[in-house]
C-alpha cells in the first residue's frame, strides 16, 4: 500500500478561498446591496456587517479595488445611494462609509470614486477625511507637496477649512469629531506637511483650553499625545510643550491623568514638563500622605506635588470622585513603573508609604491625626476598588527596594489583609499575589536561595492565616490560598527554612483534604498544590490504617482516582498536568515503574470526555517518548537538558516500551479525535516519532504484512467515526509501517485550517445575511 490514507485534502478548500470575489458571491451581491439600501429591511445583526467589511478588506488587500468596483457596479450604487438624505440605519451608513474608506485606499480606486465629486465632501466621516487628506497631500505625481498651506490642493484646503470651522464650533460633538480627525491624521501620517497643519491649527486647539469647562477633554488629550508622538513634528519648534503644560494645568485631575502618563512615556520631552506630568500622577497619593501624616514634615514626594487644592481637599472630597481618582492614579503609576523612561529619581519610599497608608485607611487601621485624614478614612473604609488597586500597585512596587521599616509595614499591612475576615475574595487574592511578590523580592543572603530571616518570621505568622483560609467557607478563598501555596512551594520548596515552617504547620494535611472539596476549581488547585508538595517531598504521611502504601503512593492512587472518577474536567486536567510534570521530573513514585504508570494514565485519559485531558495525555506520551528514545530536539537551544540515555539497542527494542504502554493505540485514536487540538497534537507527536525513526539503517519495515493491513483498516474505520474496532497488540514493525503510510503532513495541513472554515466562507455569510431578511427568491411570491 503506497497511497496515503484518505484525509481531507486542502485542495477541497480551494473553492472557498476568500481572496477573490467568486461568481457565486458576485451573484448574491446585488441583492444584498439592495437590502442594505432599503431602510425598510433593517439588518438585525451588525456583526455580519463587520464580517462583510473584513471580507472586503481581504479582497482589496489581495487584488485591485478598482476591478472590484468595475465588476460589481452595485457597490458604487450602494455608496451613492447613501448620500441621499433618507432614513438610513446608522449601522448601514457606518458600514458604507468604512467600505468607502477601504476602497479609496487604493489610488486608482480613489480616482474612480472621485468622479462623483460630492461623495467625500458630503461625508464628514473622520477616517475617510483623514485618508483623503493624506492622499490629496501626496499629490498625483508623488512629488513633495508644498509646505505653504495656501498652495495645498483644493480638496485638502476644504477639509482643513471644515476642521477649523468645527474647532470654532460651540457644540462639543463637533469639536470632538474635529479633534478625532486630527488625532488620526497625526497618528497615521508623519509627512512634513503635518507640521504645517499643526502650526496652522494649534492656536485653535489652544483656544479650547480657555473655555470652562474644557470641551472634549478626552479627545483633546488623545490629539495632543498623537501630535507629541508623531515623528513628523519637531515638538520644540511648534509650541507643543507649552500647550501640553497648559493643558495639564487646565484639566481636572481625573482628565489630566492619561495625558500625564502619555507625556511621561514620550521619549524626549523637557524635564520641566515631565516633572509637571509626574506631579499630576502623584498628587492624589501626596494628598493621602499629607492628610494622614503624623507630623506635617516633608512627605518625600517631589516638591510642588501637593498644590493649593489639597487644602480644600477638592479631588478627595466626595467618595465617588476620591475612589475614581485614586484608582486611576494607582493604575497609571503601575503602568509607568516598569518603563525605562519612568521618572528618575523614582520616589519609591513615599509611594510605598502611600500604598500602605491607603490600604490601612481602607482597612480602618490607619490613625490619621487631622480631620481631613479622618474624613478620607470614612470615605475609603471598606472600599474594595481602592483595595484592589492599591494591592496591585503595592505588588508592582516590590521590584524596587524600600527602607527596612517601610518594608516591615508592607508585610504588616499584607498580613492584616490576609487575616481580616472582611477582606473580599478578590482583595484576598490580590493580597496573596502581592505577598508572594514581596517575599520574592525580600533580600537574599548571597549564595542562599532561602527566605531571609525577616521573611521567615513573617512566614511564621502567615502559615496560621493560610491554614484558616484553607478552611474558608468561601471557595474562592480556598482556591486562591491553594494557588498561593503552590507558588510558594515551587519557589522555596527546596529551602530548609521554608520546609521546616511548612512541615510544622497543618497546611500540607489540610491541602490533602481539599482534594475532596465539593468545588471543582478547589479540587483542581488542590491537585496542583499536592503535586507540587509531593515533588518537593513535603507531603505529610497520613495517619490511619487506610493508607498502607505510604504517603507518596497513596497520593498517586488518589490522583488516579480523581482522574478516573471526578465528574468535573478541571481536577482531571490538573491531575494530568501533575502526572506529566512528575514524569518529566522523574518523580520517585513514577520513576520506579514508569511504564506501568504511563500505561495506566494513558488508558484512563483515552476514555476521558474532556479534550484537554486527552491533549494533556499526548503531552505525557511525548515526555515518555522523549525519555524512551532520547531527546532529539530541544525547544530552547540554551536549555539545560538532563542527560537522557540514547537508545542503545536496535529501534525495535527502543519502540517496545512504547508498544507495551499502548502509546500508539492512544496516539492513533487521538489522530482522529473529534476535537481538533487533540488531533493536531497527536499528529505532531507521530511526525516527531517518524522523524526520529527515519534512520536508513533502521528496522526492517513490514510494509505488506496482514498486521499492517488490519491496522490500516481499523484506522480507516476510526476516521469514519467508528472507534469501536480494537487495534490489538501492535508490534514495532507494524507501527513503523503504518507511520510511513499515513499522510501526516496532509492531515496536519487540513487540521491547520480553522475548524469552522466552511461556516466562515464569504458565500455562507452572504447567504446568511440574505436569509435573515428573507429575500432569497421564492419567498417573495408568497408575501402579500
Amino acid at each position: 500500500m503506497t497511497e496515503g490514507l484518505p484525509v481531507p485534502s486542502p485542495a477541497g478548500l480551494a473553492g472557498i478561498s476568500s481572496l477573490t470575489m467568486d461568481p457565486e458571491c458576485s451573484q448574491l451581491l446585488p441583492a444584498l446591496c439592495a437590502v442594505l439600501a432599503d431602510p425598510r429591511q433593517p439588518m438585525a445583526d451588525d456583526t455580519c456587517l463587520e464580517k462583510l467589511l473584513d471580507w472586503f478588506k481581504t479582497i482589496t488587500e489581495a487584488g485591485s479595488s478598482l476591478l472590484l468596483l468595475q465588476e460589481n457596479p452595485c457597490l458604487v450604487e450602494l455608496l451613492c445611494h447613501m448620500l441621499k438624505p433618507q432614513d438610513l440605519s446608522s449601522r448601514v451608513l457606518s458600514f458604507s462609509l468604512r467600505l468607502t474608506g477601504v476602497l479609496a485606499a487604493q489610488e486608482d480606486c480613489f480616482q474612480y470614486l472621485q468622479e462623483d465629486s460630492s461623495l467625500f465632501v458630503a461625508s464628514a466621516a473622520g477616517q475617510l477625511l483623514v485618508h483623503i487628506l493624506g492622499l490629496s497631500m501626496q499629490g498625483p505625481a508623488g512629488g513633495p507637496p508644498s509646505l505653504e498651506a495656501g498652495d495645498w490642493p483644493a480638496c485638502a484646503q476644504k477639509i482643513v477649512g471644515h476642521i477649523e470651522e468645527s474647532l470654532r464650533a460651540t457644540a462639543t460633538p463637533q469639536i470632538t469629531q474635529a479633534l478625532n480627525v486630527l488625532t488620526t491624521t497625526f497618528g497615521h501620517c508623519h509627512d512634513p506637511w503635518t507640521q504645517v497643519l499643526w502650526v496652522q491649527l494649534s492656536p485653535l486647539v489652544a483656544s479650547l483650553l480657555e473655555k470652562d469647562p474644557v470641551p472634549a477633554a478626552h479627545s483633546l488629550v488623545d490629539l495632543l499625545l498623537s501630535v507629541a508622538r508623531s515623528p513628523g513634528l519637531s515638538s520644540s519648534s511648534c509650541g507643543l510643550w507649552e500647550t501640553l503644560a497648559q493643558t495639564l494645568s487646565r484639566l481636572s485631575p481625573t482628565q489630566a491623568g492619561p495625558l500625564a502618563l502619555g507625556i511621561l512615556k514620550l521619549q524626549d520631552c523637557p524635564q520641566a514638563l515631565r516633572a509637571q506630568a509626574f506631579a499630576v500622577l502623584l498628587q492624589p497619593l501626596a494628598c493621602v500622605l499629607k492628610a494622614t501624616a503624623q507630623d506635617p514634615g516633608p512627605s518625600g514626594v517631589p516638591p510642588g506635588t501637593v498644590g493649593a487644592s489639597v487644602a480644600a481637599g477638592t479631588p478627595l472630597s466626595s467618595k465617588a470622585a476620591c475612589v475614581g481618582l485614586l484608582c486611576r492614579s494607582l493604575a497609571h503609576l503601575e503602568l509607568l513603573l516598569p518603563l525605562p523612561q519612568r521618572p528618575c529619581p523614582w520616589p519609591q519610599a513615599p509611594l510605598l508609604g502611600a500604598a500602605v497608608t491607603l490600604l490601612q485607611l481602607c482597612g480602618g487601621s490607619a490613625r490619621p491625626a487631622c480631620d481631613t485624614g479622618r474624613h478620607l478614612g470614612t470615605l475609603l473604609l471598606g472600599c474594595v476598588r481602592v483595595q484592589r488597586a492599591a494591592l496591585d500597585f503595592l505588588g508592582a512596587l516590590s521590584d524596587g527596594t524600600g527602607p527596612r521599616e517601610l518594608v516591615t509595614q508592607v508585610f504588616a499591612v499584607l498580613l492584616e489583609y490576609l487575616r481580616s475576615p472582611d477582606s473580599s475574595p478578590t482583595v484576598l487574592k490580590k493580597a496573596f499575589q502581592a505577598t508572594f511578590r514581596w517575599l520574592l523580592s525580600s533580600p537574599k543572603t548571597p549564595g542562599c536561595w532561602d527566605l531571609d530571616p525577616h521573611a521567615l518570621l513573617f512566614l511564621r505568622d502567615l502559615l496560621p492565616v493560610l491554614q484558616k483560609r484553607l478552611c474558608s467557607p468561601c471557595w474562592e478563598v480556598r482556591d486562591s490560598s491553594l494557588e498561593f501555596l503552590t507558588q510558594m512551594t515551587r519557589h522555596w520548596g527546596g529551602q530548609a527554612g521554608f520546609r521546616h515552617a511548612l512541615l510544622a504547620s497543618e497546611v500540607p494535611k489540610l491541602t490533602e483534604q481539599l482534594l475532596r472539596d465539593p468545588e471543582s476549581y478547589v479540587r483542581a488547585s488542590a491537585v496542583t498544590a499536592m503535586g507540587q508538595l509531593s515533588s518537593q517531598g513535603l507531603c505529610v504521611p497520613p495517619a490511619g490504617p487506610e493508607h498502607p502504601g505510604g504517603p507518596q503512593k497513596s497520593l498517586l492512587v488518589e490522583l488516579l482516582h480523581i482522574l478516573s472518577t471526578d465528574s468535573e474536567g478541571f481536577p482531571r486536567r490538573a491531575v494530568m498536568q501533575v502526572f506529566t510534570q512528575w514524569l518529566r521530573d522523574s518523580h520517585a513514585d513514577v520513576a520506579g515503574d514508569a511504564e506501568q504508570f504511563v500505561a495506566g494514565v494513558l488508558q484512563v485519559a483515552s476514555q476521558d470526555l474532556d479534550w484537554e485531558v486527552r491533549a494533556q495525555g499526548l503531552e505525557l506520551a511525548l515526555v515518555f517518548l522523549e525519555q524512551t528514545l532520547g531527546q532529539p530536539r530541544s525547544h530552547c537551544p540554551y536549555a539545560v537538558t538532563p542527560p537522557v540515555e540514547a537508545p542503545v539497542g536496535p529501534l525495535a527494542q527502543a519502540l517496545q516500551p512504547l508498544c507495551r504502554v499502548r502509546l500508539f493505540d492512544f496516539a492513533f485514536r487521538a489522530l482522529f479525535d473529534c476535537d481538533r487540538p487533540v488531533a493536531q497534537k497527536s499528529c505532531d507527536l507521530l511526525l516527531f516519532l517518524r522523524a526520529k525513526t527515519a534512520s536508513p539503517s533502521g528496522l526492517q519495515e513490514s510494509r505488506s504484512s496482514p498486521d499492517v493491513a488490519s491496522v490500516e483498516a481499523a484506522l480507516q474505520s476510526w476516521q469514519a467515526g467508528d472507534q469501536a474496532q480494537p487495534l490489538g497488540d501492535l508490534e514495532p514493525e507494524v507501527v513503523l509501517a503504518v507511520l510511513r503510510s499515513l499522510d501526516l503532513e496532509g492531515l496536519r495541513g487540513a487540521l491547520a485550517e480553522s475548524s469552522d472554515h466552511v461556516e466562515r466562507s464569504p458565500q455562507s455569510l452572504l447567504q446568511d445575511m440574505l436569509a435573515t431578511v428573507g429575500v432569497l427568491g421564492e419567498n417573495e411570491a408568497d408575501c402579500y
Partner: protein
Amino acid sequence: MKLYCLSGHPTLPCNVLKFKSTTIMLDCGLDMTSTLNFLPLPLVQSPRLSNLPGWSLKDGNAFLDKELKECSGHVFVDSVPEFCLPETELIDLSTVDVILISNYHCMMALPYITEYTGFSGTVYATEPTVQIGRLLMEELVNFIERVPKAQSASLWKNKDIQRLLPSPLKDAVEVSTWRRCYTMQEVNSALSKIQLVGYSQKIPMDQASLKNSDVLILTGLTQIPTANPDGMVGEFCSNLALTVRNGGNVLVPCYPSGVIYDLLECLYQYIDSAGLSNIPFYFISPVANSSLEFSQIFAEWLCHNKQTKVYLPEPPFPHAELIQTNKLKHYPSLHGDFSSDFRQPCVVFTGHPSLRFGDVVHFMELWGKSSLNTVIFTEPDFSYLEALAPYQPLAMKCIYCPIDTRLNFIQVSKLLKEVQPLHVVCPEQYTQPPPAQSHRMDLMIDCQPPAMSYRRAEVLALPFKRRYEKIEIMPELADTLVPMEIKPGISLATVSAVLHTKDNKHVLQPPPRPAQPTGGKKRKRATEDIPDCKVLKPLLSGSIPVEQFVQTLEKHGFSDIKVEDTAKGHIVLLQEAETLIQIEEDSTHIICDNDEMLRVRLRDLVLKFLQKF
C-alpha cells in the same frame, strides 16, 4: 416630656418616658456583665475551682478570704452570681402605666420591675419576643438554681471594703443594688402581665411611620461596629473546620436562641464542603428543644426569604434537617442521654456566654487543658477576655468572632437621613468613637442638631413643645351643634363628646347614650363604663361696660363707688362694703370679705351684662 434613663447599658436599655399624663417604660434590659465578677458555677464538682486560694489584703488581712478567691491574678466573688438591675430610685415605678418590650434581649429585667415595685400596668410585646424571652429566662433560672450555693457573699459590698478591693471589683457600680436571679414563679407572674401585640408591622421595619418624628430614641446598635457579621460567620466556620480537622473539639458559648440559628444554617451549608459530615454537633440547653421548634413557627417575623418558605414543605431554618440526619443532637443538660452519646471530636453549642453558669462551665474545665480544642465566642455581650479570666491558665485556643446583627453606624446614618427626626436621644457611648478606635469618626452618631446623650440615672427634658392640635368632629356630632353668634362672624357652641385619640389623630365622637333603665337588675358592665356627663354650667360671653355697671350698682343701693383704671381693665371699689370688683378682658373677680350673700348679689349683677349659652 421627660426621659428617665434607668440603664446605662446601650444595648440593654430601660428608659421611662413621661408625657402628658402617661408614663411609659421603653424596654427592660438586664445588665448581666456584673456576673463576670463572680466565680463560675460548676455543674460537676471542680477541684480546681474549689481549691482556689482566698484573697487577702496587702497587709495580709484575710477576713475576706471566704468571699473572694484569686485566680491567675484576678479576684472573683465566690457567691451566687448577681445582676445589675435598672435604677429603681429615680422614679416611682408603680406609676408606670405601660411597659413596651421591643425584643427578647430587652426584657430580662422584667420580673424585677413587675414583681417588686408595685407596678400595676400592662406590658406589651409581640409573641416571639415573649416566647423566646421566656426561654432565655427559663434557661437562666435553671442554670443558677441547679447549682445551689450555700454561701452568699455580702461583706465585700460594703462601701468601705469595696474601696480596698482590686479592679474591676473596686470600680463596680451600685453593687449594693445587685440582686440574685429571680425564680421561675416570678418569671411566670411577670409574663402573665404581658399583653401580646398582633402582627401588623412590616419586616424589614417600615421606616415611613418614623418619618419626621419629634424625638428619636436610639438604642441597641451593634456592640462591635468594626466586625462585619458576614465576615465573622466566615471566620467562625474557618476556625471551626480548622480545629475539627486537627482532631480538636469546638465549644461555642451561646444563648439558646438568636445567632445560633444562623450559625447552624451556615454550618448546614458548609459541613459537607468542609468534610465535616461525620462530626457531631451538640446543642445543650434546658430549652434547646423548645428553641429549635419555636424558631420554625414564627416565620412571619423573619426576613422575606424565610417567610416564603412557610409555603414550602421545608422549614424556614435548615436545622430541622440537621436533626433528622442526626448531625445535630440536642440535650437539656450534659447529664443523662448526652453522656452516653458523647463522641469526640465534636462541636458543642451551649450557654451561658458569660461562662459563669450553665453547661459551658463544665466544657471549659474539660477541654481547657488541650491546645487542640477551641472556644469560639460569637455572642458580643461579654468581653471574652473577662469571661475567660477564671479559667486561666488556659491551653485551648480562643477565637473571638462576635456576630452582632444590630444596626451599625452606616445604617443609622442612612436611617437618620431618611427619617429626619427633629431630635435624637442616645446613650452617651454613641456620641464618640469607641475608646479603642478613637480615630474612627465613622463609629459614632453624627447628626444635626447633635444627639442628646444620656447615662444611667439621668433625667432628660426632651425638647418637645406642646402645641395646639387639630380635632375632627364626626358628622353626626356636628349635626347636633347649635352655634350662637356672639360677634359678627364668630359663633360658639357647646359640645359634649368623647375625645378619641390614636396615632396622634384626635376625633370627637358623639357620647354614648346613657343606658336605659330596664327596671330589672341593673348590672354595670365594663363596656358601659362611660364618662360621667355632669350638668354643665353655662358659658358666658360679652363684655361689661363699666359706666353702666356703676349705674346699676348705684340703682341697687351701693354708694361711694370709685373706679380705677388698670393696665388690663378696671377695678370697681365699693369702699363702704370694703369690696373690690376686678374687671378684666377675660375674667372678673369679686373680692369681698367672707360675705357670700354680697358676693352672690354682685355676681348676679355682673351676669346681667353677659350672654349665657
